[in-house]
């Protein structure tokens, strides 16, 4: 009695030693990759995720192999494991007692599997356990380790499994920070693991190739390991030496470098261009914002503008190669440098500031008050270069929030003692010649950039007169800060303008002297406009209290705030001999870049799209139905396009083969048609087999006859006649009918849309051979 076949795991899994080596190397490789994730999270929660995900993925793959699950079975198991452990590990705030997932947690987990990757590259690092951002790490480590073990245990060439961590590592780096963290150690560790793994596999492969295998012995294995270690050490040593000679850049290009951030300031109107609007009589005494807990002299920054195109100062953006334009989402709490003190400031907005979120100092954390606070909090983005914040979608009037900040120093800085720093700011497109003419006599006799800047500020304070030109008793003063307006400012007598013009002029002058500079729009605690009605609340800032100053980068003190607006005093009458300059109309916003969308200056940033006027005139329900129908139809067509393309390609190929130019080619083409049809039906036709071997694999006797005829047409010296080709195609049609009749409807459909036979001819080796054979 013959033994009945059993589903023994011993016949599926490799020897324990091989299995152990697979698990060991997989875990080591993915542990090295986990180290690459560390700069993204820097939290104990991530350590727990890695410690669970990697062994779990390995275990699932082993179980799936032992129980002979198909690939989709393993995928289901990994998905189930992700659902079970995902919320407690990666979304712990949504787990009851830290273990049981809440329904919202599951939804968040599923959402994060798809969207977490995008969120990860648009947020400031490290993110810790913020929201569900641990999910990408969990997915990568769980799926990666499971896939690696599965390939190692199932693939015909197990060594291909090393490709998975080898590909996974740079991908993880791509999601990491731009600053380089442990580049050599992690790479070397992963390289060592993968090389050792390859060495082990090579040994297994050779042993398996032997007939009556003879074990190479411990000595051979030791030699191989030693060789692998030697290669890694030599490569690592050479790499380290090279790095010592040519140090790599401190920063690298990763996804977050190139990805479109959630907020593009260049598509937003310059707030400085709308500065004068705050001084319109009907608005000037309105409360702009209230700030409680603000130290005296501390500044509330609305926007920081460092890019000037000759028309307006704007926030730089990636479009103009400035880090000041890159706003990223803020995780729970930003790092606080050692020794720094954190202050809390409560702010309340009296009016909408567009996207700009007034802030102060160096942001540590932001807490939104009121309803829907978490959603609003999630829209806060921040630029650490300029210490300015933005609320994507707009900061509405009435918004209340608390800022935990490291206050900026408020002491007076003697400008004559500082020298220009090296901060990167966008280049100025053009500086008016009149500014240079005005600047030259002021600074030419003064030594030192700091002293020159102090002289310029002093001259602005003494020669300049403050006027917004909005009240009847004020001197005329044109708004704007274009080149034309600044020309007028420096050439007119007396020099009349307000913070908009003086800050713009001073920033350009500082650039001319050599200081990287920028214009800051905001409020200064303790500094109030002395006109109009004073506010009842001492912590409140009126619209007319809005001002602007400049900041210059210095070697000694970093960015230093410089007040350049002259004090209010009576403006003398203009010089009668001087002609009134003809000025051009001033645009209120900067012109867009060539490829940037025109900013809609009229629409407030927080406008509800649903409230926009619909000009189509159609019934909204009908329009919605049409849109949904069109979208569904489009999706169906989109989904069917590949299928139709495949069917068309196969039909064209068949027609071309049947009508090939000569009988020999038609016979050969007939044979190829049979092979392709068999391939599309899932028959494993050996790719490197001869025709007879392929015919044997296909199985039908008539196919073997076709193979012989094709062989004769190809290799015999005599040319076949057309009748023979016709007979071959009759046989081909018969074989295809046999295929069709022996298959179910579903199998026929799958064969029709299968791309196996199309892919067969797209391999490089095949192309090369065919090219060679065509001569």
């Amino acid at each position: 009695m013959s033994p009945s076949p059993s589903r023994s795991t011993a016949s599926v899994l490799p020897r324990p030693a091989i299995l152990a080596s697979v698990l060991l190397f997989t875990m080591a490789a993915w542990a090295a990759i986990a180290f690459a994730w560390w700069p993204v999270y820097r939290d104990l929660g991530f350590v727990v995720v890695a410690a669970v995900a990697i062994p779990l993925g390995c275990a699932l793959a082993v179980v799936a192999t032992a129980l002979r699950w198909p690939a989709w079975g393993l995928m289901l198991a990994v998905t189930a494991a992700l659902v079970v452990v995902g919320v407690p590990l990666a979304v712990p705030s949504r787990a009851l007692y830290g273990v049981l997932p809440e329904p919202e947690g599951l939804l968040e987990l599923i959402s994060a599997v798809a969207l977490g990757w995008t969120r990860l590259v648009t947020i400031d690092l490290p993110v810790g356990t913020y929201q569900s951002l641990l999910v990408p790490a969990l997915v990568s480590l769980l799926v990666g380790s499971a896939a690696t073990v599965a390939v190692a245990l199932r693939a015909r060439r197990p060594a291909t499994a090393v490709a998975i961590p080898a590909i996974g590592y740079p991908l993880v780096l791509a999601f990491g920070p731009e600053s380089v963290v442990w580049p050599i150690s992690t790479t070397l560790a992963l390289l060592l693991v993968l090389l050792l793994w390859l060495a082990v596999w090579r040994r297994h492969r050779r042993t398996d190739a032997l007939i009556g295998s003879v074990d190479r012995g411990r000595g051979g294995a030791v030699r191989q390991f030693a060789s692998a270690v030697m290669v890694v050490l030599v490569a690592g040593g050479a790499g380290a030496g090279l790095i010592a000679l040519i140090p790599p850049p401190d920063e690298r290009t990763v996804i977050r470098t190139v990805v479109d951030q959630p907020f593009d300031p260049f598509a937003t109107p310059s707030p400085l261009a709308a500065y004068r609007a705050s001084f319109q009589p009907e608005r000037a005494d309105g409360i702009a914002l209230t700030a409680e807990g603000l130290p005296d002299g501390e500044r509330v920054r609305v926007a920081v503008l460092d890019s000037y195109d000759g028309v307006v100062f704007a926030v730089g953006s990636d479009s103009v190669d400035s880090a000041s334009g890159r706003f990223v989402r803020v995780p729970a709490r930003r790092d606080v440098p050692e020794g720094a003190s954190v202050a809390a400031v409560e702010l309340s907005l009296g009016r909408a500031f567009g996207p700009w979120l007034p802030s102060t100092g160096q942001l540590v954390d932001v807490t939104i008050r009121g309803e829907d606070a978490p959603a609003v909090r999630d829209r806060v983005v921040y630029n650490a270069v300029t210490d300015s914040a933005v609320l994507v979608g707009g900061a509405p009037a009435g918004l209340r929030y608390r800022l935990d900040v490291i206050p900026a120093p408020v002491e007076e800085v003697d400008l004559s003692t500082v020298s220009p720093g090296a901060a990167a700011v966008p280049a100025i497109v053009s500086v008016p010649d009149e500014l240079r003419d005005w600047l030259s006599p002021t600074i030419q006799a003064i030594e030192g950039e700091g002293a020159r800047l102090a002289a310029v500020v002093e001259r602005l304070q003494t020669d300049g007169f403050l006027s917004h030109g909005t009240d009847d008793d004020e001197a005329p003063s044109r708004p704007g800060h274009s080149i034309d307006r600044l020309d007028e400012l420096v050439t007119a007598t007396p020099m009349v303008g307000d913070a908009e013009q003086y800050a713009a002029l001073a920033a350009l002058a500082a650039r001319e002297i050599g200081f990287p500079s920028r214009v800051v729009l905001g409020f200064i605690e303790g500094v109030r406009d002395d006109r109009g009605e004073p506010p009842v609340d001492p912590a409140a800032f009126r619209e007319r209290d809005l001002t602007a100053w400049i900041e210059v980068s210095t070697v000694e003190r970093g960015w230093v705030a410089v007040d350049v607006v002259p004090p209010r005093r009576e403006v003398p009458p203009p010089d009668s001999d001087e002609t009134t300059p003809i000025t051009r109309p001033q645009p209120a916003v900067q012109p867009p870049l060539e490829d940037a969308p025109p900013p809609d200056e009229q629409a407030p940033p927080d406008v509800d799209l649903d409230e926009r006027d619909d000009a189509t005139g159609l019934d909204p329900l009908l329009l919605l139905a049409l849109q949904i129908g069109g979208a569904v139809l489009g999706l169906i067509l989109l989904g069917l396009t590949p299928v139709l393309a495949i069917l068309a390609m196969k039909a064209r190929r068949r027609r071309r083969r049947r009508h090939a130019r000569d009988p020999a080619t038609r016979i050969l083409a007939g044979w190829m048609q049979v092979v392709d049809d068999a391939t599309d039906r899932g028959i494993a036709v050996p790719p490197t087999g001869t025709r007879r071997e392929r015919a044997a694999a296909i199985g039908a006797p008539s196919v073997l006859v076709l193979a012989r005829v094709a062989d004769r047409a190809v290799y015999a010296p005599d040319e076949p006649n057309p009748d023979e080709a016709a007979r071959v195609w009759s046989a081909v049609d018969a074989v295809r009918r046999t295929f069709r009749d022996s298959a179910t409807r579903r199998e026929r459909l799958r064969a029709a849309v299968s791309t196996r036979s199309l892919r067969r001819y797209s391999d490089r080796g095949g192309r090369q051979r065919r090219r060679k054979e065509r001569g």
Partner: protein
Amino acid sequence: MTMTPEQAQWFSGLAERIVTNVESVLLGKSYVVRLGLTAMLSEGHLLLEDVPGTGKTSLARALAESIRGTTQRVQFTPDLLPGDITGITVYDQRSGEFSFHPGPVFATVVLADEINRASPKTQSALLEVMEEGHVTIDGTTHPVDAPFLVIATQNPIEQAGTYRLPEAQLDRFLIRTAIGYPDHASTVRILAGASGPRATVLEPVIDLDTVRTMIDAARTVHVDPVIGDYVARLVEATRAHADVRLGASVRGALALVRCAKTFAALDGRHYVIPDDVKSLAEPVLAHRLVLDPEAEFDGVTQASVIAQVVVETAPPSDRVAV
């Protein structure tokens, strides 16, 4: 001149008669008989590496008898001298002249049993005859008749006290193979007396002149250039193989093509196909490889290398992009 399809059918018919005739003695060994016939019709020689008692002598004798040829068996021993194989010149006192006494090599089929037990000098004497097709003694050349087939045997088990054939001499053998033990069914038939009594003489099915005509015809089988390219890629792959110190030579490639021609004709074809090359790659090329000592120590064999090369070297693909 190229063989015609009709000639190929004639060739195949005769060969089939010989194979059937020999198979009546050597049951269940059609492939080996075909290889032996291929070696003879390709004007080469056959090396059998096999254990005793598998039918080597029967094969040689049956082949010779089937073509109405003669057969000689030489048991190689360490004290065997070259003259014992090639023949000697003896002084005849009555006539006062030297007369040549031909050795056992002057036969249609010569069975050199356990060739590796003789000294290298004696081995070389036989190998010279195999290569040159004549014997030169005392300045006189004595050609051997065609067809001339040497079936040499080596015992792969008992290596003590033997002189291993050098690679250069192994290269002289067109084909190396093993008969091997018969399968179960054939063994039962042998035990039942199906192969007949040992002393039975087979009836010849063709004569020597016909065999010579077949040898000439086999040379005219068509070989497409892509087959030549395939053979070249195979031998190049043996040279590039990591476990091989010395790959197949050009002589090996020529031998493979020559055997493939004969093999195709045996199958009734006047053209060679890649299957012929694949079938013959191991018997024709394997014994010409010199393996890396470390790989050999690991247990890698010439046959396993050829098997890997054949699997990894793609045969000519379909030549037109249709």
